[in-house]
């Protein structure tokens, strides 16, 4: 085989690869493009007519911010967005704190029952939320809260507190901690530092990769959850984005332009977060495989 024809074959192979990539990229991108483009189409009839051709993916015809303005002013979008930010933000932050604390105790401290506790945590990873959702509903319905009222339904804390403790996060932290070299911690212990200080000032700053992993995995899971809000939230006051999306989507007469504007505004922030922190998303997917 001469060098020229080999180079030609390589070029053809590369071209074929690009064609395949191009088709796949179209498959994954076009639904998103369709959403964003449709959100700007203020003429509902035109939006539906455009679906018959490639115009579905092109910003053509009557375009404007009208759908967005409608969604901002006449739907609970802003409220739902803030609710999602609050609920997910608090859950992820507190989760990182308490789960890493438990993992630190399991990885570094000696106490009676440690092995049992570790075994229980690992066993709990397998319990899917779906299997406990109904009894959990019953439970939170009976729990007390400040102000003497009973039952947690329709609140922020009912969407936060049950999800802070997370067995798989504990396991990820544990795996990371046992792999950390002990020297620094032992030196600090010699100098009389408290365990809390070691955890907070030495271990956690070294644990940024696993913190990011846990944060991304929990963020994706909590941000998209619909099952629990459907069960515990009534009305718009405490509804997060997926629930608000469902409510708005189910309303008639349905204005598709506005539905797509709602969807686009709900998506844009998560997409932006993904594009900025892409590296951590990749890492989190990879470390989720340790679970196996």
């Amino acid at each position, binding site marked *: 085989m001469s060098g020229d024809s080999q180079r030609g074959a390589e070029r053809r192979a590369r071209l074929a690869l*690009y064609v395949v990539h191009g088709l796949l990229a179209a498959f994954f991108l076009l639904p998103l493009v369709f959403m964003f483009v449709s959100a700007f189409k203020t003429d509902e009839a035109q939006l539906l007519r455009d679906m018959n051709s490639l115009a579905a993916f092109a910003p053509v015809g009557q375009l404007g911010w009208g759908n967005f303005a409608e969604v901002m002013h006449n739907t609970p979008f802003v409220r739902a967005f803030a609710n999602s930010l609050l609920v997910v933000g608090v859950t992820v932050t507190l989760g990182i704190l308490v789960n890493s604390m438990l993992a630190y105790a399991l990885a570094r401290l000696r106490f009676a029952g440690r092995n049992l506790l570790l075994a229980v945590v690992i066993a*709990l990873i397998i319990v*899917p939320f779906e299997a406990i959702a109904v009894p959990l509903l019953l439970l939170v319905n009976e729990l007390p809260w400040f102000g003497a009222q009973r039952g947690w339904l329709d609140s922020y804390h009912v969407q936060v507190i049950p999800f802070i403790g997370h067995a798989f996060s504990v396991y990820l932290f544990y795996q990371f901690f046992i792999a950390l070299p002990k020297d620094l911690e032992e030196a600090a212990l010699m100098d009389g530092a408290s365990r809390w200080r070691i955890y907070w000032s030495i271990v956690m700053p070294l644990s940024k990769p696993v913190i990011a992993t846990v944060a991304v995995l929990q963020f994706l899971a909590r941000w998209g959850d619909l099952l629990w809000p459907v069960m515990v939230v009534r009305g718009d006051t405490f509804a997060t984005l997926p629930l608000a999306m469902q409510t708005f989507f189910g309303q008639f007469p349905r204005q598709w332009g506005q539905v797509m504007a709602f969807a686009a505004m709900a998506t844009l922030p998560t*997409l932006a977060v993904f594009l900025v922190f892409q590296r951590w998303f990749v890492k989190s997917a990879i470390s989720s*495989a340790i*679970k196996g």
Partner: protein
Amino acid sequence: MSSLQMTSSSAAGAPPATVRRQRPRGDGATAWLFAAPATALLGIFLVLPFLMAVVLSFTNKRLISAEELGTDFVGWRNYARLLQDDAFWVALKNNFVFVAIVAPLQSAFALLLAVLVNQPLAGSRFFRTVYFMPVATTMAVVAVIWSLMYAPDGGVVNRFVGFVSFGLIAPQDWLRDPALVLYAVMVLSIWQGVGFQMLVFLAGLQAIPVDLYEAAKLDGATPWQQFRHITVPMLKNTTIFVLITTTIYAFQLYTQVQIIASSGTAAPVDSFRTVVMLMVHEGFGSGKIGHAAALSVLFFVLVLAISLIQRLLLKEERAVA
């Protein structure tokens, strides 16, 4: 797991006196302060409801309990009723059909994508980002976008299907046709989820030593032979992991079908109702907690069985290696 067994066996093997001398002061109180918050939360919101599910599944508990009626133990009645309930079998069948198609298809697709983005090609990173973007899109939103694309007559999907089939396949009402709605859900689920498994496979691919391929190339192996005899066997554990997790995700199917069901323009719910949807409907909609608890327990047993199969497969692999 193995490290856990090692620590416990070594502790048991050493005489207790030396162990105590090795650690002059235990970390008991401090340790429990560290462990307490998460342990308490897991205990109250995971272990307790789990035990409640088991206990409640043997009672006739209702969500709005009529105090005068009370709650009684009814033995296996909830389970017996469940097994006689057509809705249960239909939901289970829907889940199994979904799993049987989505788990292998999505895993194979993910492997294909991983191999493609793993090629030394300018722009590979860009394509990897694009393939992952749907994962960063909320499932409720994904279901809404596809609902419009599935529109009957002049919908995007219908136009596309007509185009690639040269007009042989007539426009369908994807979400309202009981024979099609589940398959329509499969497509949007794969679209949303496959990017995640692609990354898992990609990690597996990048862990394969490059020398293996170089040696094979020297021996004159074609790219397909390299894939068949190096990539596939080296990815066995990753593949088992991806297949099993995809299967478990598929059994948890809820959000997309719930959105479509609540659209008001979907097929009769029996044609795509899943086990989790039925559970919410029974326990929450109809308030039959005992019934829903039995369903939860069966669901857990199902997931547990799948995970045990995974353990078994992986152990076998280790024994062979």
